[in-house]
């Protein structure tokens, strides 16, 4: 999932400007399950914004709505009917959600209420860890399902480095050495000999180095002249 966390209230308030009617839009997908932008978090932010602006003697109306998926036009289009009542939208979606709203509704100001952090998973209640950097060229088959791009601090393809101590990365005792994990996993699978093969330098053009990325599937595209 995409993991995000809410910006401080003061920062969100500073983005409101002179807006008198504000709509907080949450998302029912990734940010709901990482407790950053679901129904409860939207209610929490709307409530704290209402109280805070009231204490500033402003009569700001803050309403709330959660869409199932903020990153698809199909799911946000129903908002159009109510958007003309608002001066500003605070999106509690990830960066994709914010941009989807801004792109679809060009007349209304959309501001982010979250900082989008990474793609990862909850390893225990209240803790999320990064697992993928979307490098665009997955090599997990060669590393026993442990990603050296997202989990090794140096993104080494032929690790570990000298900073690996007692299974931990030198940057922090809370960070396990990815290459130690890779070694343990490959050993348990009886495939450790495969690690002797030196990995060539990675082609980063599939990652951000190639500019903004795009996927086109012609079989899924609508026929010429078809109204979408």
């Amino acid at each position: 999932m995409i993991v995000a966390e809410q910006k401080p209230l003061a920062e969100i308030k500073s983005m409101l400007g002179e807006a008198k009617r504000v709509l907080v839009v949450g998302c029912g997908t990734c940010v709901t399950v990482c407790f950053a932008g679901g129904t409860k978090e939207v209610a929490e932010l709307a409530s704290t914004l209402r109280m805070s602006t009231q204490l500033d003697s402003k009569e700001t109306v803050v309403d709330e709505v959660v869409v199932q998926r903020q990153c698809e036009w199909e799911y946000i289009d129903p908002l159009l009917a109510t958007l003309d009542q608002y001066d500003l939208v605070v999106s509690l979606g990830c960066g994709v959600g914010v941009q989807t709203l801004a792109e679809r509704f060009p007349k209304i100001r959309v501001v982010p209420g979250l900082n989008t952090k990474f793609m990862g998973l909850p390893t225990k209640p209240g803790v999320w860890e990064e697992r993928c950097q979307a490098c665009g060229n997955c090599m997990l088959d060669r590393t026993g399902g442990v990603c050296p791009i997202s989990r090794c601090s140096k993104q080494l393809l032929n690790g570990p480095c000298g900073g690996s101590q007692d299974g931990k990365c030198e940057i922090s005792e809370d960070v396990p050495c990815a290459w130690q994990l890779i070694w343990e996993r490959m050993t348990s699978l009886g495939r450790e000999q495969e690690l002797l093969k030196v990995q060539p330098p990675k082609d980063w053009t599939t990652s951000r180095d190639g500019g903004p990325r795009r996927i086109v599937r012609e079989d899924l595209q609508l026929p010429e002249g078809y109204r979408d």
Partner: protein
Amino acid sequence: MSDTQQNSDLKIVAFCCQYCAYKAADLAGSLRLQYPPEFRIIQVPCTGRIDTVEVLHAFEEGADGVVTLGCMPGDCHFLEGNLRARRRVERVKKLLAEVGLEAERVEMYNLSSAMGDKFVQYATEMTERIRKLGPSPLRHSGKHVAGTPVAGVSQMRESL
């Protein structure tokens, strides 16, 4: 009139677990113990039922203080509802500070159903604290501006 009987227009919302605090309040009544009238009891099945949003909404609607009273640590009928409630109360304290309200306006206490006197002690303690802080500024800042949830997207989809 004693301090505990002295009435003011303060409102302190007390979320009381039905297994401990609510019964302790009942016991306090049976023992003819007085507690401040500002203390307004709401019975809940467990303090773990209380979410941060409910506490925030209480303040938004004009509460001057909010208390959650749950079972002693280790005695929760739902194992750890009281422990979760305490963490949520700590979170609300931080949120209130961000909003600009005093974090002391919200508190959590633990007690058992046999502690009628403790219930009175906590109710008095919290009421004294709120009396010192005074009424919530949200009550006197003018028009109430609580928002309303916009129609759910399922309803919106039907209207497409």
